[in-house]
């Protein structure tokens, strides 16, 4: 076992850093919880008939006046907090991860091409990036939310809300990928294996994706973890501004927005339990991101 660990430097470092272990444990727990939410959760918060109003505002089990059936209490609608959080985390992660993938595909594609062709194409891509940076993420989300409401037929608007939100978040994150991919591609371009491939007469697409891409995955992976955390936070902020998901299919962000109304009214758990959950999720993802950055950092090679 030790030999196996030694073989891969990354693993050896992993075993020796408690922070990474705890973070992975927490993140894995949350991911699994979210994945198996329908089976674990007491009640499906999205199905209106599955909970009743009369169980509203019940405190967590350890406080008086609680109903032991709901370990962490219920929100104003009578939804069990744990089930809401699991479903909420699931939705937040679905949105976060799909937004990330879209952002990665757009960002890396444009970044690679900008780095490879350079010159005018590069300038254009960078100006588009500037325009995107000039529009803060919240703005992009607002505007896309508006378009969707304007264009899409009313009937399917409701179930497309998740897609609209994902696209909005993705559009505000692709710039990070583009900038990193472009910088790394510049470095690889004057490496000799790239010149060899170009000399052979290989098509630009093949040079970019078969040769250059594998060599710039390191820094991109780090961006992936860090941006996953900010995607989830962005979703929460959008919900706060009232643009995020509707209240009947809550994500973590919506749960926190609903919780904000009860901040002072004594029902502290409606806000703080989802917030702590979100912090645990985001911190563990960030810690993993830092750990990956150290692994891929050439200094360790």
């Amino acid at each position, binding site marked *: 076992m030790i030999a196996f660990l030694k073989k891969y430097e990354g693993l050896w470092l992993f075993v020796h850093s408690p922070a990474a272990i705890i973070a992975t444990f927490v993140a894995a727990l949350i991911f699994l919880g979210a994945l198996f939410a329908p089976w674990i959760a007491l009640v499906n918060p999205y199905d*209106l*008939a599955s*909970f*009743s*109003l*009369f169980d*509203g*505002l019940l405190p967590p089990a350890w406080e008086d006046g609680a109903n032991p059936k709901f370990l962490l209490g219920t929100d*104003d*609608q*009578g939804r069990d907090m744990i089930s809401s959080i699991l479903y909420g985390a699931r939705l937040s992660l679905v949105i976060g991860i799909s937004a990330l993938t879209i952002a990665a595909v757009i960002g890396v594609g444009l970044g690679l091409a900008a780095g490879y062709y350079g010159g005018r194409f590069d300038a254009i891509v960078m100006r588009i990036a500037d325009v995107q940076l000039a529009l803060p993420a919240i703005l992009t989300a607002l505007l896309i939310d508006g378009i969707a*409401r304007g264009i899409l037929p*009313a*009937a399917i*608007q*409701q179930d497309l809300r998740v897609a609209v939100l994902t696209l909005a978040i993705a559009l505000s994150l692709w710039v990070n990928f583009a900038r990193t991919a472009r910088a790394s591609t510049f470095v690889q371009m004057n490496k000799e294996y790239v010149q060899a491939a170009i000399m052979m007469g290989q098509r630009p697409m093949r040079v970019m994706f078969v040769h250059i891409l594998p060599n710039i995955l390191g820094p991109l992976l780090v961006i992936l973890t860090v941006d996953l955390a900010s995607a989830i936070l962005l979703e929460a902020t959008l919900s706060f501004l*009232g643009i995020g998901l*509707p*209240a*009947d299919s809550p994500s973590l962000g919506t749960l926190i927005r609903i919780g*904000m*109304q*009860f*901040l*002072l*009214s*004594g*029902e502290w758990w409606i806000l703080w339990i989802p917030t702590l959950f979100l912090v645990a999720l985001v911190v563990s993802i960030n810690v993993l991101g830092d750990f990956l950055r150290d692994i891929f950092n050439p200094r360790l090679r």
Partner: protein
Amino acid sequence: MKSLKLALLGGALSMSALGASAETFRWASTTDPQTMDPHAVNSAPVLSFLNNVYEGLVRRGQDMSIEPSLATSWEPLEGENGWRFNLRTGVTFQDGAAFTAEDVLFSYQRASDEAADVRSWFAPVTDVRVVDDFTIDFITSAPNPLFPDSIANFMILDKDWAEANDAALPARDAENFATMNVNGTGPFTLASRDPGVRTTLAPNETWWDDVDHNVTEAIFTPIGNSATGLAALLSGEIDFIQPIPLQDVAQVEGRDGFKVLEGEETRVIMFGFGHEHDTLLYSSDVTDANPFTDPRVRLAAAHALDIASIDRVLFRNKIEPASQLVPAGISGFSEENQDRPAFDPERAKELLAEAGYPDGFSFGLKCTNDRYINDEALCRAAASMFAAVGLNAELTTGPVRDYWPQLREDDFDMYLLGWSPGTFDMEHPIRFLLHSQDDEAKLGSWNFGNYSNARVDELLPLIQQEIDPAARQAMIDEVVAITQDEVAYIPLYTQPLIWAAKDNVELTQRADNFFMLRWVTVN
């Protein structure tokens, strides 16, 4: 009824504390009045704020009854339809100019111009004649017993001042002098105005009425976020905030030094139907018909709702169940038809079976999420109650800015609506919600489902012109009875009105949510 009495009690108390020491009074609300021009926008926050600066011919007292203001008395005209107003003498505007009938005529022309959003108040008025400096006649197209009531918010401004600063008409697109400056006859005048940030009022020394407030300076600041607003009150930075979220009532009452004023707003919350729709838009199982056109299905929906538990869980026992489109205590309230459909899921299922939908159907319920108190939570609760009897509601909530356009395009199966009668009389909701849509006559303009009943349409003009109160009430009762039997709408409850203030502040909470500085005493 209990809530209105409470408000009265509050009022009486404040009258006694006279001549307390001079004080700065700081208060906040969620929205800032858009403009200082009394005729530019017909919205509650603006009219409420400007009622402290400008005055109308008549004004509402603490119990909402009509009192003399710039007009000392008024009587119906003989020989033609209309009213004669005898104006108060010796009144001056805040810049010293004398108040005469000319100013009233000028204000009427300004307020009824196309550029003024309040022109709908003067739909019945055909002509206005100045008899002499202190008498003026309003000629109406038909007998209009409620006319004086309907112009309580019609505020008078000085003709010369307006024309001198070329503010003869309310601002169309660019602002004019009246948007940022005032010259009224009211108890307070504008000291400073920083739109969206801070507006300060100072007492009007030359006010004609006797002063029973002790405010030397009033500072109004809008606070959008309700949690921040509450924090501002509890930290002592502001003396009064309207409204506060009802789940924070216990918290405020728990702290010493603060008090909560609870009352009923005149706004009735209800569900409306697409009477004219021939199919359901959002249904996954019934696509060829609109079950809601059958009154039995509408009654079933009414029976499915348990208002008592909504009150207990969502509103912490602060709402009054509503049986019709206006709350009790409003003129024209129909005493006979006070009972509303009881919570009876079994009866609801029977009705649905009778109507041919034994296992119910799915439909689209559309609600706002930022317009009425707990509107989103209410719709979710209602949807789960409907589901219990087989009416599977697919809930869509959204901000109010997109809500009205969607309703206008009939994009709903059932929708949430809150209505506060502008003239505080039953005729108002009948004119806007029950009369069938008729654009030229500007009737039924908010009757989105286009509920239409010939008898109701026939009765409206009669009600408007009937001078004798008893006969008028009888006709109103008939309309209420018809619409209750046909379940044109499902009235749910009247919305609670929660204000919070420091203990040392005496003020009066009025049912139309207007806040009058002149009844405030800070001790």
